[in-house]
């Protein structure tokens, strides 16, 4: 049964049809890939799912609930966390504080509890801190906890974004080009990290240009071109699909 269901999603920017009637379903527990040439509308689909954009038409449902055009923070609380294609960390804050941002929606203390320093608030903070440290350990950044986010290497910044997303205890994590800017070693580690995320019972939806990673990590793929879905299925099938091959040869065959 599917955890995320995207139906006839359409988004226009002025005269440009960025996403054109796209539908797909992500089964629970899967690692699911969204691929396509540059400018195919992949990130726009992500932004529509996470409520950053409002679709012109179509719907998104998650966990059997309609979440179309809900506020982003609400969607995160509902269980969808994401990372960004262009890294968006809180650059001047400590690595650990960045992860705490992810914990935010699972905590309850408000301003009054904080000003009065209630014991409940104190305990909650300590638990959040422990949880954040555990997520850092999970992605392998435990020794960087005190460092400022902007001082991390590019690959580590991507890992930190993943840790921050995981800290919100998502049912689905959306990774937008997680291997972007990583070297081969880091990419290989990322493949195993994605497998470990899946092993935690978290469904993974990702956009990636690195085809070797996609083929290794994903069980199912959807291919977009010019905002339209042109193919869908397991990687082995997609590889042989003539439409897909043409789409990639038409732009940059290097990726494939």
């Amino acid at each position, binding site marked *: 049964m599917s955890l995320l269901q995207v139906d006839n999603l359409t988004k226009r920017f002025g005269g440009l049809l960025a996403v054109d009637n796209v539908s797909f379903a992500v089964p629970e527990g899967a690692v699911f890939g969204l691929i396509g040439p540059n400018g195919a509308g992949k990130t726009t689909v992500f932004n529509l799912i996470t409520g950053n954009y409002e679709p012109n038409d179509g719907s998104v449902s998650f966990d059997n609930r309609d979440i179309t055009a809900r*506020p982003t923070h609400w969607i*995160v609380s509902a269980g969808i966390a994401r990372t*960004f294609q262009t890294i968006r960390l809180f650059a001047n804050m400590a690595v650990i*504080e960045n992860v705490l941002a992810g914990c935010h929606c699972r905590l309850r*203390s408000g301003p009054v509890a904080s000003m009065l320093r209630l014991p409940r608030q104190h305990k909650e903070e*300590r638990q959040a801190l422990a949880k954040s440290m555990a997520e850092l350990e999970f992605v392998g950044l435990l020794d960087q906890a005190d460092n400022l986010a902007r001082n991390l290497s590019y690959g580590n910044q991507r890992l930190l974004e993943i840790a921050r997303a995981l800290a919100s205890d998502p049912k689905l994590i959306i990774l937008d080009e997680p291997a972007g800017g990583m070297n081969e070693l880091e990419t290989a580690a990322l493949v195993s990290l994605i497998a470990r995320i899946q092993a935690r019972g978290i469904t993974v939806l990702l956009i990636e240009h690195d085809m070797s990673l996609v083929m290794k990590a994903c069980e199912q793929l959807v291919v977009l071109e010019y905002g339209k879905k042109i193919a869908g299925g397991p990687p082995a099938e997609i590889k042989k699909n003539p439409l897909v091959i043409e789409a990639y040869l038409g732009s940059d065959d290097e990726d494939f």
Partner: protein
Amino acid sequence: MKLAAGRIKKPAYGAIILLWMIAPLFIGKYWTDVLNNVAIYALLGLSLNIILGYGGMFHMGHAAFYAVGAYTTAIINTAWGVPVLWLMPAAGLAAGLFALVVARPIIHLRGDYLLIVTIGMVEIVRIALINNVFGITGGANGIFGIDSPSVFGFQINGIVAPAHYFYLVTAFLAITIVLFYLLENSRFGRALKFLCSDEVAAEGSGINTAGYKLAAFVIGAVWAGMTGTLYASKMGFISPESFSFWESVVMFMIVILGGSGNIAGVLLGAALIIGLPEIFQGLQQYRLLIFGLALMIMMIFRPQGILPPKPRSYPIDKLEKNEVSL
């Protein structure tokens, strides 16, 4: 080096607090009154700091909230004789409600647009006060005959005995500093700093950015409103003059020059911007010119203010090994 700085920090703060507490014993009435003004502006700066410093929202209409608090106090006190200090919660509530209503539709505006709209807001409030809106604000003359505060039957007249008033306002300032420090170092303060740093990332991490922005506005306004009570009861009269756009600029400068997002910085900012012109009385007419130049120069050489906040550190070494697990 770092260690040494850390070691002198606590005694330095202690010395400053001690000097502040005993100052009225040695300086005359005039200078005690200057300190009272510094304290009032420190309160205003701290309340604005929640919106501007932590939240990063360019709000230049803070005097409007201050005015709502002061006028609420003046109107209720002169009409029904309710003791002024009892009116502090009422003034805070009125200012907070006002903020809730006016901030809600403008909260999503980008930095410079927000700045312009808040300037518009404070101007409309001032014009409304001058036009004697609802017939209760006394028009351009304002409201006279506001009572002095009294604590357990002891009258504190801010004009006749500034030293008495000094300890009242200092007490409120101390409470404010402690509460705001706790607020800064909490989930709430963290959320504001996240959205200040990158709003899209904050929202994407599950933070209700619009809600937090509104909450920051309301908390800042509540405190400005309560400070309005202190001001009205100190002066005995208030008029629209005291809540002009220029007042908002002064509060804004206190936060920006002192160190946006840092309590110590805001306190320093208040001392410099309110205190320094008193010391250089001869330069009175150049005061604004110098402020303007200072703003320009600061933005080029030290845009984060004199005392910028340090990145927050967390007691991760105090966690037990068994706590850190998924």
